[in-house]
């Protein structure tokens, strides 16, 4: 079996998840910070759920939602002629939800940390909320955004339970590095398991070290 395939798949999944979370997480974080809706706390709780839920619980429900018997699962099958569960796309969806708080919370903290006076100054200078967001909030939230992106990347790299539940263990499609380790141990191939583990360990350590280095506010952010 190709040794590098699970690692590359993990990297691909993490990268796509990170980019998707950047796109989804920024408007979500903006809404959570600036919305005056009373039920905001409910959305906030839902976003934070993956932090406390066992990955298997999340994976189980996701499987129920995207499986062949569900509405979404059937719709996807008709539209794309393949199942969402046990596919790479399904993995992306699972990772997206699983890593959501790791992106949204640092974004949220960063947006909330921008001095409100600066926003008011921008509005009073005739600039729209959208312009203010791109010209003031986003550049001043750079650290939090980098933190959120890197954390969601690293977290996706290390996920296991959700991936196994929703994606199974299909080589080249859903067999990511963390699953490969489990596999190798089952087969008593401790050498390969050790290699995968060492690579994941060093990679995660390097990523975190870089984040800590460029962003001293890391601890306050998360």
């Amino acid at each position: 079996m190709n040794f590098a395939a699970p690692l590359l798949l993990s990297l691909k999944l993490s990268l796509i998840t990170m980019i998707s979370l950047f796109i989804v997480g920024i408007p979500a974080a903006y809404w959570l910070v600036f919305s005056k809706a009373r039920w905001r706390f409910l959305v906030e709780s839902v976003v934070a759920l993956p932090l406390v839920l066992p990955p298997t619980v999340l994976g189980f429900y996701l499987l129920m939602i995207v499986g062949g018997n569900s509405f979404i699962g059937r719709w996807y099958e008709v539209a794309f002629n393949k199942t969402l569960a046990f596919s790479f796309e399904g993995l992306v969806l699972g990772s997206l939800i699983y890593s959501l708080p790791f992106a949204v919370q640092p974004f949220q903290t960063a947006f909330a940390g921008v001095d409100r006076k600066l926003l008011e100054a921008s509005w009073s200078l005739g600039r729209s909320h959208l312009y203010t967001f791109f010209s003031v909030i986003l550049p001043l939230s750079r650290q939090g955004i980098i933190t959120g992106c890197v954390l969601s990347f690293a977290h996706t790299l290390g996920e296991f339970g959700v991936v196994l539940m929703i994606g199974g263990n299909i080589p080249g499609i859903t067999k990511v590095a963390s699953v490969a380790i489990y596999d190798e141990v089952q087969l008593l191939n401790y050498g390969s398991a050790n290699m995968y583990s060492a690579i994941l360990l060093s990679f995660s350590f390097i990523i975190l070290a870089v984040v800590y280095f460029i962003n001293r506010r890391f601890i306050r952010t998360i």
Partner: protein
Amino acid sequence: MLNISLQKTWKEFRLDVAFEIPRGKVTALFGPSGAGKSSILRIISGLEMADRGMISHGKEVWFDDTKGISLPPQQRSIGFVFQDFALFPHLTVERNVAFGIKEKRRLNELKDLMSLIGLSGYERYYPAQLSGGQKQRVALIRALARKPDLLLLDEPLSALDWETRRQLQEDLKRITQQFQVTTLYVTHDITEVYKLADYVVVLESGRIVKQGTPEEVFLGKKLSTRIQIVGKVVSIESDSIIAAVTVLHDDQYFKTLIDTEEVDRLNLKVGDDVVIGAKSSDVILFKVLTQS
């Protein structure tokens, strides 16, 4: 002319005011902290909303609760100068000043604006590299750059030290006169009112208690003196008949003698703001000889 009438109730505070801001003049909103001055400014700018009332600028209605009109700050032609400057820390001085300018061709005016506030050469500096006085100059010119109909200043000098404050008072006077912009100036410093304002509205616990020219408001009458010095009492030395009162104005001391009775009647204390007036008909004037 800006017509303002507004009411707003917070938990334990009620604001209920109505006044006018004459066009092209500087109107000071004066009162102790907690009187509601800054709230009025925020409501006029559209950053906060009143419960009831009306704000109109000429024929343009900015706020009218009966008609459900409330323009957002972006649609009110205002310039807002905050107490703590609120400069964008990630933008250079030049880009801060240009922030509100939407027409590309007007960017040519930046150079003139920068020299007007004495910041030529500082275009590429970041706010963190500037002194407090320079920051507030940038904030002032940023607010004026988009040529607002109304300039709102929220205690713009209170975060600055005494010397810088004095210089900026001069700058403010020069610049507001040059731009001829209708200005509402929030302050709790009586010397600033005298120095800068044409009119003053005095606010106490959410209500207007007096309004008029600074002389009318603070002295109760138009003063017919020719020489007036506004300052702070720094010492009172009195015996039973006469008292020597020393007043600090800018960085100069003025000593004047008045009846001790008068000191008692006015309940004059060190730290009070006072006006020294003199009706002098034969003032001697010297030209200062400078060596060239």
